[in-house]
């Protein structure tokens, strides 16, 4: 069975600094997708970034980028120039055959 592990329950970053959130997963499949979702206090889940497993190039969305290491089954999220609005729970998710598996989340605090 697929699993997703986020080993950092909580992280802190100074405003304008860079932070990296870790995620590892386990699967025997070769075709899958990986996602990072943000959940602010409003509870609404918002997609941050997506990576197709067949693509070697790391996905980037403005200040957000990933380090996708397929062989190591690692999918970390880097947030550059952190802003106060980045404070939220961040969930790593694996998707294959239409079904999502979510990690337990990392709470990111941004310090002014």
């Amino acid at each position, binding site marked *: 069975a697929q699993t997703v592990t986020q080993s950092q329950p909580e992280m802190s970053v100074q405003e304008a600094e860079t932070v990296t959130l870790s995620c590892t997963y386990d699967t025997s499949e070769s075709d899958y*997708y990986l996602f990072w979702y943000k959940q602010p206090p409003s509870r*609404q*889940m918002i997609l941050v970034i*997506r990576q197709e497993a067949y693509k070697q190039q790391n996905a980037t969305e403005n200040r957000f980028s990933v380090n996708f290491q397929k062989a190591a089954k690692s999918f970390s999220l880097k947030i550059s120039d952190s802003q106060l609005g980045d404070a939220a729970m961040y969930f790593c998710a694996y998707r294959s055959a239409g*079904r999502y598996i979510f990690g337990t989340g990392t709470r990111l605090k941004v310090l002014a």
Partner: protein
Amino acid sequence: NAGVTQTPKFRILKIGQSMTLQCTQDMNHNYMYWYRQDPGMGLKLIYYSVGAGITDKGEVPNGYNVSRSTTEDFPLRLELAAPSQTSVYFCASSYSWGGDIQYFGAGTRLSVL
């Protein structure tokens, strides 16, 4: 754009009561999902649907039922509510089966006392 709409936002149930959580999407998505999120945990899939008339179990289906009579609506039914069903419930939809993103509703916070 409404997206995915869930009602109610909050609900308190007594043990043994039943209720239906409503979910509607206006994006013409074929795929819809119900998740629960327990405190400090990620989301766990309860049920999902790949189209009107077709539903299937996820990781934690016990104590719940779903139906999908239209593309837009995917209600989740709780029968004989138990304290273990206290959670936040999220409905989501996506266009396809593959790598499409899921669009989430704002969630329903349910307490069973």
